[in-house]
């Protein structure tokens, strides 16, 4: 009786659910934030944070919910970026069509990488994606006829139906809208039967399979979804920056993305956004410390993992819930 009334209450307050309430709050933040921006540099950092957030929201579905580690997501990011850039610059495709085609291509690549690996139990995916990321970065650096090699390549500006996106304001709006869409899609997935299946196979693959969950299929699906998020962010980054280099596919970059997810909080979409934002903004803010920058950055990371072991957002929201009860 008491339980059912509590369940009713939970359904009534739509603003308290992560899907609708959380997205409304995020939309508010995205809309209000530019009021505090003094110059173009602020916009640039915010756009970088937004693009990283899109990748991390997808990567968190894979790592936080399904419990599968990828050490090669920078590879998918770079393939999305170079795919969009090459189709638009060398073959003169419309930028939007180039972006969609590149993302679809990456989805296919992710399926081909994930399909044989994810039939196995254990952390083989980490090894396979590590190799995949390294291969991508080597190919991009060496195939200099096509990609310009280590020097990178120019990317034409993004244009859709005659409108050319050049200003910081336009890019802020585009990335903000894409981030909200990414969070909406991810949160939908989390709160669906598929999301439950992912959390289930994370805890116990045997029990999940006994419940009829096809574990390999769901793992491949979420791997492809996370690669698509990374590739879309890659394509946007290429058009925004106007210039890309193979270092975007580096192993260090892949590890950085995983760190963002773990820092913000596993199995929390908004944690992924917070993690990506903090770890994008923090190095910029710490530049005033000059040679101590990296030491302070490392100390902050360590302190977070010691005092907020489940990541920033889940630990803090857990404390908050206990406080209100």
């Amino acid at each position, binding site marked *: 009786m008491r339980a059912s009334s509590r369940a009713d209450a939970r359904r009534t307050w739509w603003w308290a659910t992560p899907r609708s309430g959380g997205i409304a709050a995020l939309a508010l933040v995205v809309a209000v934030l530019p009021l505090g921006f003094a110059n173009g540099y602020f916009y640039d950092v915010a756009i970088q944070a937004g693009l990283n957030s899109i990748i991390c929201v997808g990567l968190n579905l894979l790592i936080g919910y399904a419990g599968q580690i990828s050490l090669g997501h920078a590879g998918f990011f770079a393939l999305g970026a170079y795919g969009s850039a090459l189709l638009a610059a060398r073959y003169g495709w419309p930028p939007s069509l180039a972006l969609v085609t590149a993302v679809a291509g990456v989805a296919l690549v992710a399926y081909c990488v994930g399909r044989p690996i994810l039939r196995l139990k254990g952390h083989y995916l980490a090894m396979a994606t590590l190799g995949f990321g390294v291969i991508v970065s080597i190919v991009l650096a060496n195939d200099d006829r096509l990609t310009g090699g280590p020097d990178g390549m120019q990317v034409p500006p993004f244009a859709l139906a005659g409108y050319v996106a050049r200003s910081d304001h336009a890019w802020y709006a585009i990335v903000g809208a894409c981030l909200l869409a990414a969070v909406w*899609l991810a949160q939908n997935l989390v709160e669906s*039967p598929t999301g439950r299946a992912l959390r289930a196979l994370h805890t116990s693959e045997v029990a999940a*399979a*006994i419940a009829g969950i096809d574990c390999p299929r769901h793992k491949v699906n979420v791997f492809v979804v996370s690669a698509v998020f990374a590739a879309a962010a890659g394509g946007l980054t290429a058009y925004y920056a106007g210039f890309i280099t193979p270092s975007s596919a580096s192993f260090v970059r892949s590890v950085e993305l995983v760190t963002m997810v773990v820092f913000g909080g596993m199995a929390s979409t908004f944690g992924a956004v917070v993690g990506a934002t903090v770890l994008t903004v923090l190095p910029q803010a710490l530049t005033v410390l000059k040679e101590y920058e990296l030491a302070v950055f490392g100390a902050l990371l360590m302190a977070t993992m010691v005092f907020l072991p489940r990541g920033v957002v889940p630990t803090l929201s857990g404390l908050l819930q206990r406080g209100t009860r």
Partner: protein
Amino acid sequence: MSTLAVSGLTKTFGGVHAIEDLSFEIRAATVHSIIGPNGAGKTTLLNLLTGVYLPNAGSIRLDGRELTGAPVHAFAAAGIGRTFQNLQVFFNMSALDNVMTGRHLRERCGLLPALLHTPGLARAERESRERALGLLRFLGLEAYADACADAMPYGALKRLEIARALAGEPRMLLLDEPAAGLNPTEAAEIAGLIRRLAESGTTVVLVEHNMRLVMGVSDHILVLDYGRRLSEGTAAQVRDDPRVIEAYLGAVDTRVAGHA
């Protein structure tokens, strides 16, 4: 009438025969118990019947359909559900989510509808939630609906596993020691539940050490020892079988037995 037919089933672990050339049949809507001393191969048999282990030889058929070698989720899709001796609850979810996960086979799990949260999916989710709440009520767990599973007591977790297994609406439910660690009152509740399931048409396969429970609810009992069939029959037939008494208590020496 659904029946499970097992023939010539063999499973070895590095030369040890855990199950050896075992054949039996389970008729629909009955309570079929599997008993035997520790190490007799009962849990191994359940793992074979749910596809968790691949047998070295033999076949498992449900309604004449060959299941041997199929992946675990295909056994589940064929209508076989189970609980585990050592709990396999999804501890990172609420009790309600655990049961809703058990309904996976009855839900549509396309990737695109999930990403877009289509109205059809939202409707199915509401229905799924209602049914899961109904099952929690059926097992006396409604107070825990929103509780995270890792905050629930042991007895409640045992029942939560049963609720999750029932959520998939299995035709055959395999219970691995459902009464282990429960007090006599709770064990009696489990017995009542098993009878109700059988009456509603679900076949129950019960592995259990609590003999009062087994003798009270079983239509048919299979006794295993060292992976082989030692005896089979109704409760009365099995209870009076000297081979069963010997396996459980050792060779009966009448003089010593008389003094005891």
